[in-house]
């Protein structure tokens, strides 16, 4: 895989007009500042600053990642409907943004996700079944973040951008050239913590990429409720560049994120990437988007589907024949099945786990309460 970019050099970010309406929302492909390498129709196009050159295997790999991620996501949604999960936050529609950026990271890079980065987790090598624990309610995450340099899901909006910044400061102090990527949403861009993360990252020149998936919605609120100019413009006033990429174009996302990570690891400090995409499903399985948005908006975005366009391209280029596609299909089904089984057999936590891991070095009150509760529970066993 080779990714070339001029973005690693200091350059003038393309900031907005500073007044309302500087860019049209949901402009999609029409917007000049959107980096795109693969059109919704599956045409490869060139971009003046970002280019990418992938082998057929690499291209097929991205396709496979997206298909499997979508399949996993669908399985989780249906597991929620079946009552196996309490909740699910679907990434449907955001596969390119997640696979493109996830595949841009190196193993030694560190990833700070929100609660929706199932595709990124996949790229990092986290077992998808592990992601379901918190949605089933058996834990709050619980995978080992250091196993794949993939932090736990963070639910409090924006918090993780500061953790990522601090981690990046540490990586730089350690003299490594590892970079960090922090995911957040369009809604999250309003949180003070995100602004503070921008400030710290800029002041300390921390090697962190802020990756905003602008999926146009924060639950029921459209992006206009968070900002009146495009989000990628936010960073310039903090002293680092921002770029908007077509978030449904896996090639562009890969190229741009790779460049941003290079920018960071080469000592040039933070960068903001706004992946312009769309949340095709509900916010979570608890949500009812019919209350606040029109079907036609979704339909418009369906035409920009990230998987379809890569498939069109692969087929056109003769890189994917029916056998290949059938193979991926079979793999998808197997994944779905494996996840389904894994979830169904996921054991409930032991009651006394309530008292575990509250502290690393112990705490007298926890010990006391644990003992009292055990005693109390024992009264039932004795048939009290």
């Amino acid at each position, binding site marked *: 895989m080779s990714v070339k970019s001029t973005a690693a050099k200091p350059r003038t970010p393309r900031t907005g007009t500073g007044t309302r309406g500087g860019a049209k929302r949901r402009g999609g492909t029409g917007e000049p500042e959107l980096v795109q390498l693969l059109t919704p129709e599956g045409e490869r196009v060139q971009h003046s600053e970002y280019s990418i050159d992938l082998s057929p295997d690499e291209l097929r790999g991205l396709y496979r990642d997206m298909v499997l991620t979508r399949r996993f996501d669908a399985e989780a949604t249906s597991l929620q409907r079946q009552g196996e999960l309490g909740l699910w936050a679907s990434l449907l529609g955001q596969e390119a943004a997640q696979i493109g950026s996830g595949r841009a990271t190196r193993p030694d890079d560190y990833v700070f996700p929100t609660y929706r980065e199932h595709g990124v987790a996949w790229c990092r090598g986290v077992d998808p079944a592990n992601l379901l624990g918190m949605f089933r309610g058996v834990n*709050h995450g619980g995978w080992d973040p250091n196993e794949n340099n993939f932090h736990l899901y963070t639910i*409090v909006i924006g918090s993780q951008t500061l953790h990522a910044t601090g981690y990046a400061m540490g990586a730089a102090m350690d003299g490594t050239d590892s970079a960090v990527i922090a995911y957040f949403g369009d809604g999250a861009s*309003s949180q*003070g913590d995100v602004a503070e993360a921008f400030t710290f990252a800029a002041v300390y020149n921390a090697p962190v990429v802020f990756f905003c998936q602008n999926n146009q919605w924060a639950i029921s*609120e459209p992006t206009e*409720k968070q900002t009146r100019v495009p989000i990628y413009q936010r960073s310039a006033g903090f002293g680092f560049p921002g770029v908007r990429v077509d978030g449904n174009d896996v090639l562009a996302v890969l190229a741009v994120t790779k460049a941003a990570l290079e920018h960071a690891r080469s000592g040039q400090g933070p960068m903001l990437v706004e992946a312009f995409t769309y949340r095709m499903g509900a916010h979570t399985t*608890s949500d009812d988007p019919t209350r606040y948005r029109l079907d036609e908006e979704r339909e418009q975005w369906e035409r920009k589907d990230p998987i379809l366009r890569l498939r069109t391209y692969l087929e056109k280029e003769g890189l994917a024949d029916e056998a290949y596609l059938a193979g991926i299909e079979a793999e998808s089904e197997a994944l779905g099945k494996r996840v389904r089984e894994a979830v169904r057999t996921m054991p409930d936590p032991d009651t006394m786990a309530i008292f575990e891991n*509250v502290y690393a070095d112990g705490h007298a009150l*926890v010990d006391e309460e644990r003992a009292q*509760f055990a005693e109390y529970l024992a009264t039932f066993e004795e048939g009290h």
Partner: protein
Amino acid sequence: MATTTMTIAKALNEALRKSLETDAKVVLMGEDIGKLGGVFRITDGLQKDFGENRVIDTPLAESGIVGTAIGLALRGYRPVVEIQFDGFVFPAYDQIVTQLAKMHARALGKIKLPVVIRIPYAGGIGAVEHHSESPEVLFAHIPGLKVVSPSNPQDAYWMLQQAIDCDDPVIFFEPKRRYWDKGEVDPTAIPAPLHTAHTVLDGTDVTLAAYGPMVKVCLEAAAAAAEEGRSLEVVDLRSLSPVDFDTLQASVQKTGRLVTVHEAPVFLGMGAEIAARITERCFYHLQAPVLRVGGFHAPYPPARLEEEYLPGLDRVLDAVDRALAY
């Protein structure tokens, strides 16, 4: 509206509607409270009927919501803020503690801040992390704030209107797992003062003091105890700042025993203050120490453990047994 059976959720919605109707200065603010009607639908239909200037969908920033609500209050408005879930109030904590709570005193009374902050709180709905917290102590400890929590539709309807009418900041804790519990609401009743406790069940052996979601648990415990011939009195505190200690004291002077029940961790929970103060007030009446049932000193657990974590009928009755064993 005549006396009607409705859920707590609906009673809150009606209370907001009534306030919006009767006072043009009342504005609602929060995330997703407009078209969506809030994630619990408490503001359902209100933006449609009162417009986007009265029911304001805000950016996703709780400090910003409370901070601008303060500014609106300074301009003469009466903002009613919705925090989406208990666990998301903390970004606003600075504005609440250092500004909202203190500004009236800072201005020697020349400024009033009639801001209500509605917080769906506590557990029992099988949610993911940060959606089941009981942070009431973190507000009740702060001078300048008032803190209340209804346990039934009638109180929900009236207490919310009273909170909005109050010229002080009120933190309004809504027991989210009871949102769909039904009860009678009499919109013509003359409500009790906001900060009074209610004895919701008379009894003689032990007093149970609870509020919000735990009132129901205590009533169930009392019913179970009654079958065993024990007479429990249940006091619904309703207000956590101030606490109506007079009502509680009268009850404990009668029963001689007190068990407090809440979901929040016991350590430094409301039960601690109640135990300390009631012990001082009823030192010679108490037959047993005040016993406290509540959450453990541990983060709220994953949903599959919340049944065990949450105080239930059995744990309440266990404490009753222990109190009676003295």
